């Protein structure tokens, strides 16, 4: 620790513009002050508006970069897999081992026995899974997953309804909204583009009414909302249907908009009014389901319908449920029937992407005049998947999503696929896992089953920066450097029109290497001499940048540490379609917004109806299982880490008390007081955490922020408190991950157990 007055003699300090781009909804500028080869402190964006200011997570990066827990050299497992015992070995030895196993498994079992698990821990264009993916492709391919936990329900709903995931507005357009409904959306804690919170504050100051719907009184609700409506988890689709009922029965819908731009309103009306099932989806019907008073539902429906333009922004969390796409579809349909789509101040609830080179026509694409008929097999650069028929229940006839329809194993079923293979109906018997930038054991559902699966494999290699739960289950761990130790570009993610150029600030620490450097050394060992791996980092980045029309000058971007793209006006999704329906259609099969979706109708699956419906599931609050496990678990995002990244950073950990949120009424009847050690459990596992007894969560609901590191003790109790020890590994029909659908019970940890684990 230095004296409290820092040395302001900057003569020997250089400032290098880099950034932080882990898997949150921000990519933020960090200006590293480098002295004698070491980063001594950071500033963030001090440049022109809009400034891309890093949050606490980015500002704490030095304690991650220089953490004594950083992996320093390659490691080889000694002892049982998962036991965490390793020995140091040289890079040559480690890479020889990896190459030998890759070749052996390819020869004996074929390429589809190689499971590639790329993660989102690094959102740069070059580093992270990019190079290993290319390498394995050239090696003959691999089996991969489909489905992303964060957003799969929202993605599916966006595609089915609008035919695209580019449904968002730039956040400055919030200034045009008369009302904003933040549905299960907590941008104060989960970064959703760095500037989102600022625009929400400005809209509020501008007089916009903001309503937050969430089982928790979140920081977003507390800061931005005029009204907070707590709702029982997993019942959002019921409240949305009831709002639609109010609009339909009181003629508050936009008749002209519906006629001109949508298909299938009548089918939806039949569902809402109960013409097909005898149950009218009235607010009174929804009240006992959602625990939202009927009057509150009706009032909100009227207010939203009458205060056009208004933005109903449906967060992804409520879509991370066992039937999540129904909520996301229901929200999209409300936006449509109120005519709030394609106009300033409105919003087409959905995936929320507003700006991305990938969807804004700035990416130089393959010849669009030669469409591919995917029904006869999908061309893929991955030889294992090349020619595969489209996945059942996939929206393969549409383009514009981000998920391959040729992949066969849903990410939540990876553990099951490893354990059961072809006998379980999966496309391959998986023998090895190649894991990059992913703490999958922690972040996929059902961690205990994950540990069992990883232990069953022939070989596991992990590229990592820390000894995560996943790395602990590897045979070979290869130490990877961080953003600060290499060059990269962070492209726009959801909605913000900017790139960040991450300039290398310091040399790689210890023996760590970039994922690309690892592949450079692995390629010849696999008999691959691909040119890509011979190019320098900068040349590759120049090549990537040259494919994007919105990067006019690489050198300027590199020098300035980023590129802010000035937009003449706020981005409004579907503006063209609304303005000029004769010439611009929605990229759906009908060319219109599909309230009743033809592709879903084709699937003919009651669990994935063609109009959005409120549906239950096997772990819903009203199932028999709730007798045993009466509490609903939420696994939300923590504000002091990014998923499982930045865990164990002391500055962040000290910011606030961590623990499972539980309402006083649920705590009291279990003899639990604030701060007690508690066990949260169901049939899948048991975690031991501290209780955070708070009024800020609704009764009947428990919240465990996901991302804490899975650490089972000798009794199999996860004393790390990983939320996914409790979550279900079964996707919704549309691919949503049921991270917020687990039922649990909570009890005070027994005295003798407390001493062991405290």
């Amino acid at each position, binding site marked *: *620790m*230095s*004296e*409290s*007055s*820092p040395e*302001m003699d900057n003569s020997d300090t250089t400032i290098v513009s880099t950034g932080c781009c882990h898997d949150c909804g921000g990519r933020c500028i960090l200006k590293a002050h480098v002295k004698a080869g070491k980063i*001594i*402190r*950071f*500033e*963030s964006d*001090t440049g022109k508006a809009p400034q891309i*200011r*890093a*949050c*606490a997570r980015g*500002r*704490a990066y*030095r*304690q991650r970069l220089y953490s004594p827990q950083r992996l320093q050299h390659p490691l080889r497992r000694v002892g049982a897999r998962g036991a965490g015992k390793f020995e140091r070995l040289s890079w040559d030895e480690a890479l020889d081992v990896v190459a030998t196993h890759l070749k052996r498994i390819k020869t004996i079992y074929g390429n589809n026995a190689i499971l590639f698990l790329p993660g989102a821990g690094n959102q740069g264009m070059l580093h992270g899974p990019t190079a290993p993916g290319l390498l394995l492709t050239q090696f003959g391919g691999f089996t991969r997953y489909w489905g992303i936990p964060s957003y799969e329900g929202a993605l599916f709903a966006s595609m089915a309804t609008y035919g695209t995931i580019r449904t968002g507005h730039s956040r400055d357009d919030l200034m045009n909204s008369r009302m904003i409904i933040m549905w299960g959306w907590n941008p*104060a*804690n989960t970064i959703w583009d*760095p500037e989102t*919170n*600022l625009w929400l*504050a400005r809209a*509020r*100051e501008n007089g916009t009414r903001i309503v937050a719907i969430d089982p928790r*009184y979140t*920081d*977003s609700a*507390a*800061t931005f909302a005029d009204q*907070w409506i*707590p709702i029982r988890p997993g019942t959002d689709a019921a409240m949305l249907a009831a709002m639609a009922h109010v609009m339909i029965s009181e003629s508050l819908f936009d008749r002209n908009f519906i006629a001109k731009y949508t298909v299938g309103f009548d089918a939806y009306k039949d569902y809402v009014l109960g013409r097909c099932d005898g149950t009218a989806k009235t607010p009174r019907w929804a009240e006992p389901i959602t625990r939202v008073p009927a009057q509150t539902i009706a009032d909100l429906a009227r207010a939203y319908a009458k205060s056009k333009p208004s933005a109903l922004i449906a967060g992804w969390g409520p879509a991370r449920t066992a039937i999540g796409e129904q909520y996301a579809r229901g929200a999209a349909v409300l936006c449509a029937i109120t005519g709030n789509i394609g106009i300033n101040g409105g919003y087409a609830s959905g995936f929320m992407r507003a700006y991305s080179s990938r969807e804004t026509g700035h990416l130089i694409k393959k010849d669009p005049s030669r469409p591919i008929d995917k029904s006869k097999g999908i061309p893929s650069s991955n030889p294992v998947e090349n020619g595969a028929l489209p996945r059942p229940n996939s929206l393969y006839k549409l383009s514009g999503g981000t998920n391959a329809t040729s992949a066969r194993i849903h990410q939540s079923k990876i553990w099951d696929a490893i354990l059961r293979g072809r006998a379980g109906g999966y496309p391959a018997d998986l023998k090895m896992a190649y894991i990059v930038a992913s703490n999958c054991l922690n972040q996929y559902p059902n961690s205990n089953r994950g540990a069992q699966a990883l232990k069953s494999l022939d070989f596991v290699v992990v590229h990592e920066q820390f000894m995560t739960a996943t790395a602990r289950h590897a045979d070979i761990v290869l130490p990877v450097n961080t953003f600060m130790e290499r060059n990269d570009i962070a492209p726009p993610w959801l909605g913000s029109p900017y790139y960040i150029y991450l300039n290398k600030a310091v040399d790689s620490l210890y023996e760590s290497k970039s994922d690309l450097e690892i592949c450079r050394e692995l390629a010849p060992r696999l008999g691959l001499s691909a040119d890509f791996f011979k190019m320098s980092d900068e040349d590759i980045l120049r090549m990537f940048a040259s494919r994007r029309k919105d990067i006019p000058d690489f050198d300027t971007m590199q020098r300035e540490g980023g590129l802010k793209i000035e937009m003449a006006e706020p981005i409004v999704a579907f503006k063209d379609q609304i303005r000029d329906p004769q010439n611009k259609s929605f990229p759906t099969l009908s060319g219109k917004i599909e309230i009743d979706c033809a592709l879903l109708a084709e699937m003919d699956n009651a669990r994935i109806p063609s109009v959005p419906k409120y549906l239950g599931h096997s772990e819903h609050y009203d199932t028999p299982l709730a007798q045993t496990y009466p509490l609903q678990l939420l696994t939300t995002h923590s*504000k*002091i880490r990014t998923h499982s990244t930045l865990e164990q950073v*002391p*500055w*962040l*950990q*000290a*910011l*606030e008390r961590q623990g499972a949120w539980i*309402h006083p009424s649920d705590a009291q009847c279990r003899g639990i007081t604030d701060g007690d050690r508690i066990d949260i459990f169901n049939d899948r596992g048991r975690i031991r955490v501290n209780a955070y007894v*708070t*009024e*800020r*969560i*609704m*009764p009947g609901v428990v919240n465990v922020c996901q991302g804490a590191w899975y650490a089972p003790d000798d009794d199999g109790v996860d004393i790390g408190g990983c939320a996914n020890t409790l979550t279900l590994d079964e996707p919704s029909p549309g691919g949503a991950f049921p991270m917020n659908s687990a039922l649990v019970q909570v009890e005070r940890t027994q005295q003798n157990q407390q001493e062991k684990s405290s």
Partner: protein
Amino acid sequence: MTQMGIYFDQTRCTGCYTCMVACKDWYDIDAGPVNLMRVRCIESGTFPELFAAYLASPCYHCANPLCVQACPEGAITKREDDGIVVVDRDKCVGVDQCPRKCLKACPWDAPQFGPEAGAKMQKCDLCADRLEVGQAPICVEACPMFALEVGPIEALREKYGDNLTAVGFKYLKRFEPSACFKPKSDC
């Protein structure tokens, strides 16, 4: 004399703690009890009628800083030209020889002490070194919500109004803290 002070827009604060961490990083202070900037959550009500606010607390550089008088060693002074309250750590004798008299005198816990034996006081000096070269304090520059501003308190009060209280912050006439607020309404 110009009295430097701080403006805090409590209605904008989401409790993201960026100011706290930026300060920790800039001054290279270990995780633990020394926080020159602190953010506190104030909650009230019962489900479903709830209220929560955050209060950012640096040192408020009082016009009448009782910590200065409380220090038996004269280690704390108020700078004549800008009213910033600073500590001379060479003069501070540390917690072994002084029972944190400055901390006891401060209603807002601005004096900070590390866990080490003989810890000497540390406190926010509004990033006086940064101000000198025309930069904003690191917390101000870090805040993603642009909820903080530092400047001559008269100018801040002219710009933002002279609201002297906020949720969790009581104005104490005896100290005359150099702060003004856009408070969050707790009704």
